[in-house]
């Protein structure tokens, strides 16, 4: 039996399907979703808004003659995310493609009612980008996605750009889809979302503060200052500037570049956090000269003390809101394997004592002595 002859029909039949005929979709017939916004509206309905690029306008965006908008939005209400997605397919002749989705934004009201039912659909979409950035909009996501930014670019990409810049992480606290799902699924840590608002006067997005969740529900919002502090307590998100009052007429400012956190469980009821931060001295409104070693050392001690006090207050607020943003549950689970359970930890967390100790090392004092 000569193999090629025998297999010839099979190979031919196979060739017919090699193109994946059923899945052929030309790029120009696809609408790439860059951003998704979901809001809660009346009667337990969802408002789903999609931001889609306008390729013609993007190509001519450099020319002055172009007056077209770089993007357009489509939206619909439905009882579930999937229902809304299906309805939206009817609003465009192109195929909606989620593979390039950069940002998914939830409205505050929806966050208060719980995100798990609405995230389930995104968890199942095979093509959705797990690195898509998640955020919470104030007051709602739909209207935010319709806004243009002063910089001539797609708002979805603008937001993505902002969140993926290392230099902005201290303020923006980016969280991706897979990271949010991981924190939501884990009983040892709670998720958070950065908060995003739109400034109508300056046509910019204002990303400041984070929304702390208890499992999938909004439990508490952190102010921009508290958010920076949270970054110091959460290695990897530490890049931020702090201003400390020295006395009534003098303020000193530092830019923190690194923080290392060591957490330990001290039975029966205490968690100790040792935080080592590094940073630059960047501002002194009193402008005391010359800067001596002794003065620098006093600054370091003052900063460490101040950060410890602020952290203690923040952690108490988080405990009262019953949201374990820092993942203290992991620390305790590692040391109490027999006792630990999700239910036990939910009860225990608000009652534990958290002691914070800061150590600050100034790595630069600036150009002036």
């Amino acid at each position, binding site marked *: *039996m000569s*193999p090629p002859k*025998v*297999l010839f029909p*099979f*190979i031919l*039949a*196979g060739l017919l*399907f*090699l193109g*994946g*005929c*059923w*899945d052929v979709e030309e790029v120009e017939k696809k609408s790439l979703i860059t951003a998704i916004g979901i809001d809660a509206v009346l009667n337990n309905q969802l408002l789903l808004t999609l931001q889609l690029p306008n390729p013609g306008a993007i190509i001519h965006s450099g020319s002055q003659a172009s007056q077209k908008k770089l993007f357009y939005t489509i939206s619909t209400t439905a009882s579930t995310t999937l229902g809304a997605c299906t309805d939206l397919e009817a609003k465009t002749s192109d195929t909606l493609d989620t*593979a390039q989705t950069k940002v998914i934004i939830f409205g505050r009201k929806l966050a208060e009612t719980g995100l798990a039912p609405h995230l389930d659909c995104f*968890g199942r979409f*095979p*093509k959705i*980008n*797990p*690195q898509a950035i998640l955020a919470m909009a104030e007051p709602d996501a739909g209207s935010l996605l319709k806004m243009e930014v002063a910089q001539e670019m797609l708002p979805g990409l603008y937001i993505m750009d902002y969140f*993926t810049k290392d230099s902005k992480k201290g303020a923006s606290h980016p969280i*991706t889809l*897979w*990271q949010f*799902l*991981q924190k939501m*699924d*884990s*009983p*040892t840590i709670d998720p958070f979302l950065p908060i995003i608002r739109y400034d109508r006067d300056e046509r910019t997005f204002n990303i400041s503060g984070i929304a702390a969740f208890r499992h999938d529900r909004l439990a508490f919002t952190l102010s921009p200052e508290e958010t920076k502090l949270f970054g110091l307590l959460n290695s990897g998100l530490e890049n931020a500037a702090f201003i400390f009052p020295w006395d009534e007429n003098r303020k000193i400012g530092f830019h923190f570049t690194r923080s290392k956190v060591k957490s330990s469980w001290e039975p029966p009821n205490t968690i100790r956090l040792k935080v080592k931060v590094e940073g630059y001295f960047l501002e002194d409104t009193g402008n005391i000269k010359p800067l001596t070693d002794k003065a620098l050392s006093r600054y370091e001690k003052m900063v460490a003390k101040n950060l410890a006090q602020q952290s203690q207050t923040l952690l108490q607020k988080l405990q009262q809101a019953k949201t374990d943003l820092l*993942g203290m549950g*992991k*620390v305790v*689970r*590692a*040391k109490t*394997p*027999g006792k630990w359970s999700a239910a036990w930890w939910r009860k225990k967390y608000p009652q534990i004592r958290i002691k914070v100790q800061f150590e600050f090392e100034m790595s630069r004092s600036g150009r002036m002595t």
Partner: protein
Amino acid sequence: MNEEHPQVSPSLYFFLIFTPLMSFTLLCYPITFAQSIGTDSYLGIPAALLFALPAILLGRYFERRFSGKTVIEYAPLILGKFFGLIYNLVYLIFLFIILFVLFRELTGLVNHFLLLHTPLWAVTILIAGSVAYLSFYGLSSTARLATFLLPAGIFIFFMIGLGFQNWSIQNAVPLLKQPVSTYLFGGFKSLYIFFPLILIYQAPAFSAEKRKNTPLTLAALVLTGAIYFFNLLGIMGVFGPENCIRYNWPTLEYVRTINFPYLLLDQIGLTLIIAWLVLAYATGAILTFFLSSGISQLWQKLSFKKVILLLVPVYFFSLISFPSYDLLRDLFGYFQYAGLTVLLGLPALLWLVSLITGRRGGSI
């Protein structure tokens, strides 16, 4: 043994065992470990290795006593014609089931991530046809194919390493705080990861250097175990057990968490799928070869090439008549018991009968 096939060199023999072991359940196995053990589920891999070792010892016994013979030939010598036939039928049916599970994983993955709208039958024709084509030219070319695909294996290993980018030790501890029985049970329950090891009852007969067979099989098993351990350690440190079980293919999702802007492709998961698919095709070809070779040894009127051609419609109709991927996962428990029986239970019985009846083949 079947004289139609040339003997393969030790390196080709290694890849004949290693490729199926490495690719069989690579993308989905973390689920059962995470479910039965928890945060330190990677410790279940050494336990599973421990349970797989007796199979190697049994294989070594038969290989030395019945040198150059496959299980299809020595089972009737030990059990007699009738029971030998039954034994071999059970063995071959299980080999088919392993192939079926592999193909269903393959079609499931293709249908989920690559060809979402393409009907299952079209994907199945492609897979069954290509696997038949690959195995049609005999063991040597199939084994060589597996060797050529080594870069795909290295690439997967590299991806697993990069996944540690988001690793946190706190997700992967407490360590060793559960009873030893939990790890042993977890390893036992997940022994299916090593089911392609049943080839040791057939493949050694095709090896040119018999002395090296056992060390090479052991090396393939330990290397696979190490890769699986490393991968599971990474997955636990990134997802933790609770999040890991959310996904159908945790290894794939783990690789999709890699994020190096400007350095790597946005869709890194896609490259992993392709790397795994080529390994899975090679595995399908290797297993198809041994299945058809076994059938042709059983019914000597059928050449293995004819059997391969007959297997294509069997693959096709069995796969399209089993459209639910989730049903396959539900039936994994039964697959587990069947595998344990064929990998360890029946060979142990064969060994006992061989000892009791004195039908021990040639000298060592």
